[in-house]
């Protein structure tokens, strides 16, 4: 769903109260009564947000599981990242996360493509398995088989028909006139069952990034024609990308060139990505209950095997 809604959900989270309290504290109180009134409100807020502190629950256990993040896009071969999960009771050991000795096969039902391990510095993790023979075609179903740590995991996905955006543009977000969001107009085809995922990158970015809330289906928008916007997603691997002091965070500049990748996906892929985004959003939100991410992989692995029907657009606001 469009960005604004996610914004609202985020703002409604817990951090609202501390901000309010800080604001109260900073503003000067010109007389005694104003100070008293504000003081009482301050007290109330203080006791509402009261202390957050570390607590030891003695959590142990958690086995290492295989995690598969695979995709196949129309006109492109499959890409599959294979990793292991890291139990909370142990320190995260980056070396044991990557699985480099897996056997990965993708088939369209006729041809079997044996994926080979490669290095791709533009991917979310630099080590991944690349396909070469089987190329994605809309309406085709693809079968994934991964053999890792002595176990076999399988999954199925279908590439749906790509649906192109009618138009894309950049618009400043007031009060700024140089920072803005990427906007698009879609004519959603009638008939329920379509699901979408939005990716974008600037000319200097390493890869296409999906902002939170980028996966949605047509449950509310079936057959409608409307505008929507997304803010700029940030690269979790870039330590500078999440600097809260950076005023351009989440925005595209007027001078940016923005590449949009807009994809359709099947139901189970969408289920994975929507629960993944919900888990990311509720992570650390004390009022939310845990969201389990629903995998479409059989055999006990975590992750997803997704088929995407993608179309591409470019926005150059300065031109």
């Amino acid at each position, binding site marked *: 769903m469009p960005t604004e809604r996610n914004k*609202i959900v985020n703002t409604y989270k817990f951090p609202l109260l501390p901000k309010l309290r800080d604001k109260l504290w900073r503003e000067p*109180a010109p007389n005694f009564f104003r100070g008293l009134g504000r003081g009482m409100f301050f007290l109330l807020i203080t006791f509402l947000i009261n202390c957050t502190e570390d607590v030891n629950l003695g959590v142990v256990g958690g086995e290492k*599981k295989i995690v598969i993040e695979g995709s196949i896009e129309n006109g492109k071969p499959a890409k599959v990242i294979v990793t292991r999960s890291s139990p909370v009771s142990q320190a995260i050991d980056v070396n044991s996360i990557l699985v480099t000795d897996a056997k990965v096969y993708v088939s369209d039902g006729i041809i079997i493509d044996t994926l080979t391990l490669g290095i791709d510095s533009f991917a979310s993790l630099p080590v991944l398995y690349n396909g070469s023979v089987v190329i994605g075609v809309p309406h085709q179903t693809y079968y994934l088989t991964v053999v890792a740590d002595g176990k076999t995991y399988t999954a199925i996905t279908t590439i749906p028909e790509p649906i192109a955006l009618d138009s894309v543009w950049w618009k400043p977000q007031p009060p700024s006139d140089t920072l803005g969001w990427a906007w698009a107009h879609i004519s959603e085809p009638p008939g329920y069952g379509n699901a979408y995922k939005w990716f974008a990158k600037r000319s200097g970015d390493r890869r296409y990034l999906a902002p939170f809330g980028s996966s949605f289906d047509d449950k509310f928008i079936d057959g409608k024609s409307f505008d929507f916007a997304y803010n700029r997603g940030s690269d979790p*691997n870039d330590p500078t990308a999440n600097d809260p002091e950076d005023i351009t965070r989440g925005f595209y500049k007027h001078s940016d060139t923005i590449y949009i990748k807009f994809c359709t996906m099947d139901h189970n892929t969408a*289920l994975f990505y929507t629960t993944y985004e919900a888990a990311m959003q509720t992570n650390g939100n004390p009022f939310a209950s845990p969201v389990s991410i629903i995998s479409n992989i059989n055999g006990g692995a975590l992750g997803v095997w997704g088929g995407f029907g993608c179309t591409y657009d470019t926005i150059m606001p300065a031109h």
Partner: protein
Amino acid sequence: MSNSSHITFFLIMSFFLIRINNIQAQEKKSFTISGYVKDASNGEYSIGANVYIKELLKGTNTNQYGFYSITVDKGTYHLVVSYIGYQDFIREIVLDKDIHLNVDMKMEVITTQEVEVVSEKSDKNVTSTSVGAVKMDMQEIKKIPAFMGEVDILKTIQLLPGVKSAGEGNTGFYVRGGGPDQNLILLDEAVVYNAAHLFGFFSVFNGDAVKSITLTKGGMPAQYGGRLASVLDISMKEGNNKEYHAEGGIGLIASRLTIQGPIKKDTGSFIISGRRTYIDVLSKPFAKPGSPLKNSGYHFYDLNAKVNYRISDKDRIFVSGYFGRDVLSFKDKSSEFTLDVAWGNSTGVVRWNHLFNSKLFMNTSVIFSDYNFRFGAGQSGFEFELFSGIRDWNAKVDFSYFPNIRNEIKFGANYIFHTFRPTSVSAKQGDVTFDFGNVKKEKAHEAAVYLSDDFDVTDKLRIHAGLRYSYFMQIGPFDRYVKDPISGQTTEIIHFTSNQKVKDYGGFEPRLNIRYQLNSKSSVKASYTYNLQYIHLASLSAISLPTDTWVPCSQLVQPQKGTQYSLGYFRNFMENKYETSVEVYYKELQNQIEYKDGSLPSNDVNDNADNQFTFGKGRAYGAEFFIKKRIGKFNGWLGYTLSYTKRKFPELNFGREFYAKYDRRHDVSLIASYDLSKKWTFSAVWVYSTGNAITVPVAYYIIDGNFVTEYGDRNAFRMPAYHRMDISATYTPDRNKQIERKKQRLTKRYEKKGKDVSAIVVPKKWAKNYESSWSFSVFNVYNRHNPYIIYFANEGSFATGDYKAKAKQIYLFPILPSVTWNFKF
């Protein structure tokens, strides 16, 4: 319970009813004494007062309207009426005709000596057939230390064994392993669907407007139904029908005012009571123009009103209502962000009491009950609104029939028209409105008939046997979204037209309580109950929030079924000064609902909420120990509960049984109060309970460069234990000294002005009627940091190599002192 056992039960019931008729035929020479029991000072009816014949040591209790009726053989007897906090009423009666006797009960004079005089019949704990029923008076509740000085009924009942609090900041309560939706909360017979203000810090019941409460946690009598776990029956005051009075209190965060008085002396009265928090009002004038505070704030208010009028000796009308709202708003102009949240209950009840004759009492009620929740937010042209709620229209008729001293028969019928509004959402971006479906309402009929008899089989054996038949029908208009089980996509929408039957359910609900009196001091009680519940509360979050929605039974959702067996041993010591009991219970629950893993709130729209549910069963068992000192300067109680609460859902936790989040192994409550003098009363509460069961992360993995969480077995871990101590002191100034002081002040003033000092008169009325008290309390004396919520925060990043996850707890209240000034005139 199978159908055949239902039939057997029905046959047993019929047998007893036939037996009653036989008894009646034999007892032509018997006569009836009946009437109402009232408080002499204000005309309020006494609920559950003990009325008995001293010579026979047999009797009854007044019903909810203060009515009693006893039929015995012709003779001369002593009629005794006893009620806690009042002097016993004893009168010799010559019963050679039917007698109508209204009893005015006088308040006990509080001196140690007189309190120690115990009436012979204060052994109700031992003699009544009710298992797991507790009645509490407001006087008793008001003594217990209150959070921020606000007396809270729901917090008080959580101090009883078998009743568990959901934790701080949560007024939802759990009775013997049942969920918060399995408690029937009645305010003057109207269902209150959400009894909490502001995340549960306060309940919606204003202590000044409440007369008494009765909590039934096991052995639910047949006149109640529609819930599995408990009934909390709250009666509002009727209002003083002798003279006008006002009372109230000024506290740190809220104030209260109650006005009551006669409409016509001894015939009709009214009461109106209000309460409001005022932090927002106090802070608003001082906020800077343009700052978010200027347009932001939170408050809640409650309004209770009741009128009653006696039309004739046989007819009485009651009209009562409640209206309360929580309002939270936030507007920040700089970010153009607005938030408006409001929720609340409203109820309205009209009741007509009619006495057909001295043995047959009837009450007819028409009841309206509504709960709704609204959440609105907006930013930069995007508007989002969410509603949910439930509304009931309810009509019922209840009869009490007292054929003889050995039987008390109740029968009646009840019909409810429900309108549910599961989460409805509307949103627009500029001019385009998103399709979240129409505001959906789901409608249903619910009806029940019941019959019960509370009767003596022998002098030692008393039985309460009841049978209830209930029926539920969901009706159109309704759209059923049929899902493809594999793809999860909607394959078909079945439309039901207005009033068309969508699905119906029904069944018999047998209830049986048995008391066997071992001797005058001890008894054994057992109960069996089978209940059906046709509505469910669907909760996504780990804590009860006002956003939780009520959903009806449907094609997918079957009625909740609960079977409970309990057994108790009751013994009083030292001439009933001490009451003790041990109760054990075992409970089975069927058709429990939970959201499927990964369900999101938005999935409710353009869909049926029940498509997201998964169904399972539960069981609970435990033992409750209770010791109470009822009378004397020093009184209080100690309760301990050992319990297990489990759930099993094929689609959750890999089908393995798991502990419910409110499973508590140990639960202790200690309440003590001490009347030091007429001026000072001290009290203290200490509670301890095992921490809530929670689901915690067991591993992390990387998706799209982000760390995400894999959760472990459902509710496999525990929050730290909850424990806390509160203390309070109430100071009631001596009236005579206050008058003396006033006199002294006036004397000084007169002397200054050179007036005649002998002319000073302190108005008698002022002296007689005016009362005030100061209540000081300290919440959480030893400043325990009890967890409100536990969550997991991830710190650092993968890129910088310092990524780690930490469990964090939020605790709400440190040590909090408060002071409240209460007045009455």
